[in-house]
């Protein structure tokens, strides 16, 4: 991000950026950066809080007047962590049964996904061009047979993840984003499929498969589950 500030400013476009990782910005030294303490993925701080977002944006815009840089300004507001609803349990029975399948799990979530889309008026699903049943079949086929190209698999998995989390946001008691992400990794067959797929991708001769396995299939915060699975520890 900081590099873009250098490029554009050098080409005649004044810039003001947001910094999510202060240590990176201190090295890159872009023209103007507003350091915020928000979670990665939320540069404006709070979803559905126009007032908060406007204050961040104003602070960013106000830096444009300054030419005494490189500027790295600390934004004064923080976002408090979400209330951790200890004991929260997914109110919809999605627990895998012995005869359950990924396809059946996807089907069970459809109604909740539709509710979420109706409530928000939009969805972020749709980078792969596949419907969710087809995306699920792609993951199953990758597990059971030949691996598809890495980019096709990556986009299908990203769409499925968005589909699951958007659906969960419409559950009668949706918990918090944190509990829903925990639900995804703790309880869903899709997460189990991804964890099972990772070693197969890692063992592929294809470099892109290896990179997917190493970096962009399982988040860093969830990779401990791979080790647990490898050791056969029951969850």
């Amino acid at each position: 991000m900081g590099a873009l500030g250098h490029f554009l400013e050098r080409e005649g476009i004044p810039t003001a950026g947001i910094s999510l990782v202060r240590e990176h910005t201190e090295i890159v030294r872009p023209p103007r950066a507003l350091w915020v303490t928000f979670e990665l993925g939320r540069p404006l701080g709070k979803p559905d809080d126009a007032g908060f977002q406007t204050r961040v944006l104003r602070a960013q815009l106000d830096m444009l007047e300054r030419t005494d840089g490189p500027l790295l300004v600390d934004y004064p507001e923080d976002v408090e962590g979400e209330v951790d609803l200890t004991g929260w349990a997914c109110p919809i029975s999605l627990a895998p049964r012995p005869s359950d399948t990924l396809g059946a799990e996807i089907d069970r979530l459809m109604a909740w996904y539709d509710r979420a889309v109706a409530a928000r008026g939009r969805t972020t699903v749709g980078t792969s061009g596949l419907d969710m049943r087809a995306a699920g079949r792609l993951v199953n086929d990758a597990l059971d047979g030949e691996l598809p190209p890495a980019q096709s698999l990556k986009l299908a998995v990203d769409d499925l993840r968005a589909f699951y989390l958007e659906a969960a946001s419409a559950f009668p008691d949706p918990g918090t984003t944190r509990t829903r992400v925990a639900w995804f990794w703790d309880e869903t067959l899709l997460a189990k499929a991804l964890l099972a797929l990772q070693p197969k991708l890692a063992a592929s001769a294809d470099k892109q498969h290896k990179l997917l396995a190493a970096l962009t299939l399982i988040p860093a915060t969830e990779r401990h589950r791979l080790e647990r699975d490898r050791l056969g520890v029951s969850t």
Partner: protein
Amino acid sequence: MVRRLSELPEVEAKHLSTTRIVCPTYDDTPLLPGKPLAARRVAIISTAGLHKRGDRAFDRDDGSYRVIPAETPASDLVMSHVSVNFDRTGFQQDHNVVFPIDRLRELVADGTVGSMASVHYSFMGAFPVDAAQPHAKHLAGLLKADKVDAALLVPV
């Protein structure tokens, strides 16, 4: 709340550490003067890997950008950033937490900002710097053609 890397859980701090992620360095930093905010035309340049549904998704090492016309409905915006190590639920809930186009539009409406660009852009932030530089240079020309004189850089 995220503070310094040293305050993050170990796995996240390690992932973001400057020994793992190579940050580019520059000998100097240009800072251009400009008009007052109320006379500026502002564009949003995201690095969240955003694009319109149906546009080409971002791939690994992709230094190019996607075009997001100002009139793009939020329902057409999707994200194909390669990284899985940031929250996406905020964007799922409200696109403005990543791409604050409605907030910028409001600031234009109340006269705080002069005007909004007719087109905004998104890169995918995990680009190798050398891959993005020619695209950024080209982008600067497009911004000037749209009379943009301020770019808001918004990471993810």
